[in-house]
């Protein structure tokens, strides 16, 4: 049974931040849920989908974040409780609707969860989505613990219903993808019935609606003044106060303890960060003369607090504010206890040393000079390695200095050695084909480099179709290569419109990529990238005349494939491999870069590491001596 379905109020369980958010929705009696996968937010929908049938609510993986938000809003407008989840980049995709649904307002609780990724651990940017709450005038909550992730989500539905606006929750990677204690509460029995009444129109009497929106936000502020998600710890009337939100709370508490400053430094933890609970904050800063703001990425809280302090200057007197603007904490990357402790020590004139100086020096030298870097790479058996090899070979054969415009997915690793450094641009979902449209129109400026746009299957449905239509319409010289591995692999293989299953694992209609391409009117071929020679030949062929074309490289993600079938045994025939005498420059281990192939230093021959190898056998087709043998398992 899923941990989400445990009906034992009061029991403490281990939950991932994302599971806690999903459980909060269930404890609020959620009726409708949508999401597009994206690290660090994906497990919210994965968790919800697992128990959707059990609790009788609706769950879908939407084609992109725009549709996800709109569909969830429709449920809200029909009186239901709905949740939508996405990563930070997804907010950009759905922002057009977000900045109009705020004006039309909503009815049933609509909770909009964003998983931000400070340090861009698995992202192409580290934007701070809290700015969207201020931009769109929407109430914003920032959970600091696993317990709060659950409790805030449950409460957000109620708040949304009371103010008639979507309520935004901002999680971050270090909460969404960490696990901790969560005490369960009751799961309500809901009788659900949806009905649409009245009208929700953003585009008429906009200034009046905008003024109403500000009033609703004031109503949210009033609720925030007494919120249980805001608290103060430390001595009453402390002169030095840390003001923090989200992940900053635990780091701040530990940093204060590590420096032994519990008696002198108070911590004001704000869970409701837009609009700010102004009276609550002012009340706790009456004696303060110095404030350190601790938060992740932008100085969002810092700027809003500074505005408040300026407005309250007569009441509060001068207060020195430290944070990102003063340079004590970074406005980029993630934070941790060490960073907060160093900032605190610096301001207070103390010394913070994490460990013995000599030891740290020795360890640091070892890290730099002895420990080899371990960059992420394609899994053994990954079809992308073969696809990018074929693209590289075809472009080389072509000889006109062609290049690849990249897109978002596992294959983004093609910016580095895993994919032979093939991707030369990398931005956001759909940007590969979009950029290629422009490159493909530069012929009149003596531009003669062929352009290949790569994109994954899920990305194709999400954001690439308008770009392809544009290429056809304006006759751009673009070769689009769809790397179709059957699912949204990067984020955990969630289904998409081409997968044949829905979020609950039930059969679903298949939307065919090649049928869409044909309907657009471009030439489309479908090939297996593991037939490497043929793949190279046909890509080369397609590069030779102009216009928009699509090659679909279709082969299932090997992580999934290997769960479904027995693993063949792959080994090097020591009689046939002639080592460095071959002239292949150790192609299989050194050039093809598969971690399943190692070099046996003693035998001076290639060797398959059977623990790592997944048995895909593509190396066997590439070895010039035919020395690699595949034995079906």
């Amino acid at each position, binding site marked *: 049974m899923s941990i989400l379905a445990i009906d034992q109020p009061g029991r403490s369980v281990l939950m991932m931040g994302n599971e806690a958010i999903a459980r909060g929705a269930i404890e609020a009696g959620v009726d409708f849920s949508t999401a597009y996968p994206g690290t660090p937010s994906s497990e919210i929908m994965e968790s919800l989908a697992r128990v959707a049938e059990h609790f009788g609510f609706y769950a879908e993986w939407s084609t992109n974040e725009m549709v996800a938000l709109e569909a969830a809003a429709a449920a809200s407008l029909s009186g239901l409780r709905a949740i939508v989840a996405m990563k930070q980049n997804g907010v950009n995709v759905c922002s057009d609707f977000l900045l109009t649904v705020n004006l039309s307002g909503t009815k049933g609780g609509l909770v909009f969860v964003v998983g931000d990724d400070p340090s861009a*651990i698995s992202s192409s940017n580290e934007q701070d989505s809290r700015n969207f709450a201020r931009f769109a005038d929407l109430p914003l909550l920032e959970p600091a613990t696993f317990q709060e992730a659950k409790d805030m989500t449950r409460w957000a539905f109620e708040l949304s219903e009371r103010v008639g606006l979507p309520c935004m929750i901002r999680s971050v990677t270090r909460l969404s993808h960490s696990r901790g204690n969560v005490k369960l509460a009751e799961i309500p029995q809901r009788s659900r019935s949806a009905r649409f009444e009245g009208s929700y129109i953003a585009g008429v009497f906009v200034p009046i609606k905008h003024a109403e929106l500000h009033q609703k936000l004031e109503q949210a502020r009033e609720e925030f003044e007494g919120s249980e998600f805001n608290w103060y710890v430390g001595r009453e009337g402390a002169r030095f106060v840390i003001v923090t939100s989200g992940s900053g709370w635990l780091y701040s508490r*530990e940093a204060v303890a590590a420096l032994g400053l519990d008696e002198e430094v108070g911590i004001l933890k704000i869970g409701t960060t837009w609009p700010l609970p102004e009276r609550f904050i002012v009340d706790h800063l009456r004696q303060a003369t110095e404030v350190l703001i601790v938060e992740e990425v932008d100085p969002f809280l810092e700027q809003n607090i500074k505005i408040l302090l300026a407005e309250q200057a007569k009441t509060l007197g001068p207060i020195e504010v430290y944070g990102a603007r003063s340079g004590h904490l970074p406005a980029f990357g993630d934070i941790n206890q060490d960073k907060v402790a160093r900032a605190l020590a610096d301001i207070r004139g103390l010394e913070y040393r994490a460990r013995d100086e000599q030891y*740290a020096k020795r360890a640091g030298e*070892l890290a730099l000079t002895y420990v080899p870097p371990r960059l*992420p790479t394609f899994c053994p058996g990954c079809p992308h390695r073969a696809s990018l090899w074929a693209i590289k070979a075809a472009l080389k054969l072509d000889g006109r200095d062609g290049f690849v415009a990249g897109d978002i997915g596992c294959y983004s690793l093609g910016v580095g050695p895993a994919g032979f450094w093939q991707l030369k641009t990398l931005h956001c979902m759909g940007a590969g084909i979009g950029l290629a449209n422009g490159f493909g129109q530069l012929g009149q400026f003596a531009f003669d480099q062929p352009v290949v746009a790569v994109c994954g299957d899920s990305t194709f449905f999400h954001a690439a179709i308008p770009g392809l239509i544009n290429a056809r319409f304006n006759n751009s010289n673009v070769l689009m290569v769809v790397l179709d591995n059957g699912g949204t692999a990067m984020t955990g293989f969630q289904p998409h419109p081409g997968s044949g299953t829905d979020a609950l694992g039930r059969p679903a209609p298949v939307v065919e990529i090649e049928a869409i391409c044909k309907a657009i009117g471009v030439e489309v071929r479908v090939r297996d990238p593991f037939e490497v020679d043929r793949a190279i030949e046909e890509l080369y062929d397609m590069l030779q005349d102009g216009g928009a074309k699509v090659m679909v490289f279709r082969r299932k993600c090997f992580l999934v494939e290997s769960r479904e079938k027995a693993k063949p045994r792959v080994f090097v025939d020591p009689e046939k491999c002639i080592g460095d005498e071959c002239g292949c420059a150790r192609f299989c281990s050194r050039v093809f870069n598969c971690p399943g192939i190692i070099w046996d230093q003693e035998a001076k021959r290639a060797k398959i590491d059977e*623990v790592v190898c997944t048995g895909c056998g593509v190396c066997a087709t590439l070895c010039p001596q035919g020395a690699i043998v595949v034995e079906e398992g």
Partner: protein
Amino acid sequence: MALEKDPLNLIITGVGGQGNVLASHIVASAGIREGLYVTVGETYGTSQRGGAVMSHVRFSFQAQCSPLIPEGQADIVVGLEPMEALRVITAFGNPKTKIIVSPRPIYPIGVLSGQAKYPPVEEVLGKLADLVDTVQVVKTTEDGDTPLAANVLMMGALAGSGLVPIPIGSFEEAMREILSPRDLETNLRAFRKGVEAIRTG
């Protein structure tokens, strides 16, 4: 109840694909069964694809900890791969740290392509021993084990070592709840093998 040191900080490290997340999930769930606050910080996403991964697991009877262990504050490190254990020690180790490590190397692609060197494993283990209190080596791939269960075998070694205040029974209970019935038996076997391995040294 009290811990000798609170919080107790454990790092499980390895290479993406070795099953770090399941290992940390098991030990953390077992900890919660013992009434502890447990926090697990994970690395996911791109680093999952053959990159260096680590899970920070923090136990406390006092309060919920932050998900990241501060520099030099690891009490115990479980290494599913020797070089990754060393990488973790350079950032989080101290002279009191205790290590349980599998000696089986997995070569980074930079090493395979000849740009970086992977020194002999014995030497890597020596460097570890120089920096920490104890290093216990546990073999994970003898006599045709399913290599995928190495993560669980190492959790058995951790449970058997007595370094975390969690009885072996709690680990097994946690596994029964987390794992699918299909995978349970194989994993319990690997776990018990790990318990055995650390006890016989």
